[in-house]
């Protein structure tokens, strides 16, 4: 046990979204670090399929408390935050509407933060965000995208409700940091992959029209294996001296979109066609123009902002994550891919 953490094992840690793809691994990582005084917050409809497996693996997990509720309920948030020292906020809604995404991300976060500040012993609020908040529209192809890169300033034009929710969530967290002294850290994972999530990242391509359209070309992917990502989140919660900081999470070893797709196709054969970025960008531009001229007869699901964000291509760095949090990926890319692909076999 490292004694220089922000909390001792006696103090309580809340994990929202703890039955989710990343959340369950965060719980497991905390248990591995010797933190058993955990409160796992799940949706009432959750069947706890991920969490049960994790808790069963760790004999010390008997003290782990599992409570269900809705973060849109202030009362439920108060129950979740009572006596908590660290809140790791992973819960996210995937509502397709902007209002729904805003509710699930921003409103839920506001409720949780207020309860945390009132009833907790706030030492750290870890807000798990996403790469969806970045905009590379005005960046060169292949430029470095890091924590200082510009944020999306027109999520409505990008037609990305999830990104909009995450942007507003981050705004709220920063506001509470400035005005109410919330000790926060924002973590932005790249494309998280691993067993339990079979879908390919949208950065590789889309499966919209009945077959897979590969749009990522030879772009570098901001991949992070789920266990590595979970460890980064846990370190963001435990390491002192990083309040107000933002951390991108990508693994050390890089893979291109083409390499990733090829590996997936070797495990599970499926048909795909490749479309080069300039052509994809042009198609998105035409779609966007038609959408505008037809006053939204076709919603602008394909547009230049999305094309840039997902398929233009950037380089990524985990320098800050390594130097400030002392993180290093515990699962190598070869092992990670093996575990990821094993679910398709």
């Amino acid at each position, binding site marked *: 046990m490292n004694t220089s953490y922000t909390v001792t094992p006696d103090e309580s840690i809340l994990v929202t979204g703890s039955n989710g793809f990343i959340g369950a691994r965060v719980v497991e990582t905390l248990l591995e670090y010797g933190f058993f005084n955990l409160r796992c917050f799940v*949706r*009432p*409809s*959750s069947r706890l399929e991920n969490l049960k497996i994790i808790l069963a693996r760790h004999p010390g997990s008997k003290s782990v408390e599992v409570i*269900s509720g*809705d973060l849109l*309920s202030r009362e439920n948030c108060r129950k979740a935050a009572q006596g908590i020292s660290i809140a790791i906020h992973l819960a996210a*809604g*995937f*509502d*397709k*509407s*902007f*209002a*729904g995404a*805003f*509710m699930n991300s*921003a*409103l839920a976060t*506001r409720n949780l933060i207020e309860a945390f500040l009132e009833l907790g012993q706030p030492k750290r609020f870890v807000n798990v965000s996403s790469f969806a908040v970045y905009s590379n529209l005005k960046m060169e192809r292949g430029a470095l995208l890091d924590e200082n890169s510009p944020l999306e300033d027109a999520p*409505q034009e990008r037609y990305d409700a999830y990104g909009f929710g995450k942007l*507003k969530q981050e705004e709220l967290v920063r506001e509470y940091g400035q005005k109410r002294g919330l000790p926060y850290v924002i973590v932005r994972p790249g494309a998280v992959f691993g067993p339990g999530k079979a879908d390919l990242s949208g950065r590789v391509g889309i499966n919209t029209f009945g077959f897979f359209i590969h749009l990522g070309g030879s772009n570098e992917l901001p991949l992070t294996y789920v266990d590595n990502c979970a460890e980064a989140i846990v370190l963001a919660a435990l390491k002192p001296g990083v309040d107000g900081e933002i951390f991108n999470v990508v693994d050390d070893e890089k893979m291109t979109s083409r390499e990733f797709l090829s590996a997936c196709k070797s495990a599970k054969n499926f048909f795909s066609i490749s479309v080069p970025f300039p052509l994809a960008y042009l198609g998105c531009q035409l779609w966007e123009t038609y959408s505008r*001229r*037809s*006053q*939204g*007869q076709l919603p602008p699901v394909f547009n230049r902002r999305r094309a840039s964000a997902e398929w233009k291509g950037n380089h990524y760095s985990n320098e800050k994550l390594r130097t400030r949090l002392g993180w290093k990926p515990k699962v190598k890319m070869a092992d990670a891919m093996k575990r990821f692909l094993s679910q398709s076999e």
Partner: protein
Amino acid sequence: MNTLRIAIIGCGKIADQHIAAIRRISNCEVVAACDREELMARQLAERFNIVSVFSDAQQMLKAAFPDVVHITTPPQGHFLLAKQCLEAGSHVYLEKPFTVTAAEAEELIALAEYKNLKITAGHNYQFAPEMVQMRRLVADGFLGGKPLHVESYWAYDLGDTSYVGPLLGSKTHWVRQLPGQLYHNLISHGIARLAEFLDKEISNITVLSHQSQKLKSLGGQEVQDELRVLIRDQSGTTAFFCFSTQIKPALNFFRICGAKNSIAVDFTGGDLICCDSKSYKSYLTYFIPPLKNARQHFWNGLSNIFNFLRGRLHQDFGMKELIERFYQSIRDKSAPPISYREIILTAKIMDEIFKQVYPPGAASPESSPFLKNEIRADHIGKERAIVLRQNA
């Protein structure tokens, strides 16, 4: 023509659709967004450049003085909010379901008439292009008189659990607090289609309802999701309503039958088929009618393509059409696009359905004030009694 000042109360998911439709209508402007949760009002205002944001409806009415207020809150708030708006002198567009009970619907409509204001229900699918065409054919006498039978099928796919997940997970979810639960929030579009062609005096309503295995597997508890309803009005027109979360392909269908001809409307494919009663000799009856139907399907498909290319096939066509007609009725002081009789009858039929599906305590169906002339001896009456015993 004066620009209509529009306000919206309730800035959740459906508010986006309202604003998108309003923006395609000339001479109107959304001037205020109001939500009890101010952050919700702010996010809507920010995305649609709405100048004023409020968290209190009374304050909004006083400060923005809108000509029309769209109320898009959960239905429990509809009655009081609409009343406030009418009392403040604003016309009201109420999202479906219009109110929680028929009594509330009647009171609101009476208030609107007293104040010389207009009110309408968000039954926007009534104004889908196919429904507009169907109504024109009926008005032209295609059916050969009053409708003898109407059928409405309305489906909801449980595959997208973003809607049912939260409500199944919480007994305090607003949908679970409605008398008709899941049905209450979903069936009014389908019922309104029937109400348009039924007399206001209904003699029989027979309800069959149960929970699907799928919903059960999702943890549905007492929520039911498979509903069949038989209705007969006093003049003998019958109606059938089917709501299903399970039937595939998902049905969104309407049929209206007359003494001479019938019309079938498939909303999913934007397809209207006129079924005439012409008879054909011998085997021609197997050849000609299917080919005639095929010709109609073909032309409907071409028409949809043509409308798409002209930018006139918006998926929310019905909503824009209803809002535009409502605004027009305000401007020229004509009748609103949905008759008050239809709104009240829809609410009354829904009241009766929910009473049979979720009987309040030991209340018997015979006590229903809505059923004016129940014929208990006939087959429908017996069926109903059986269903009620099963529910009990």
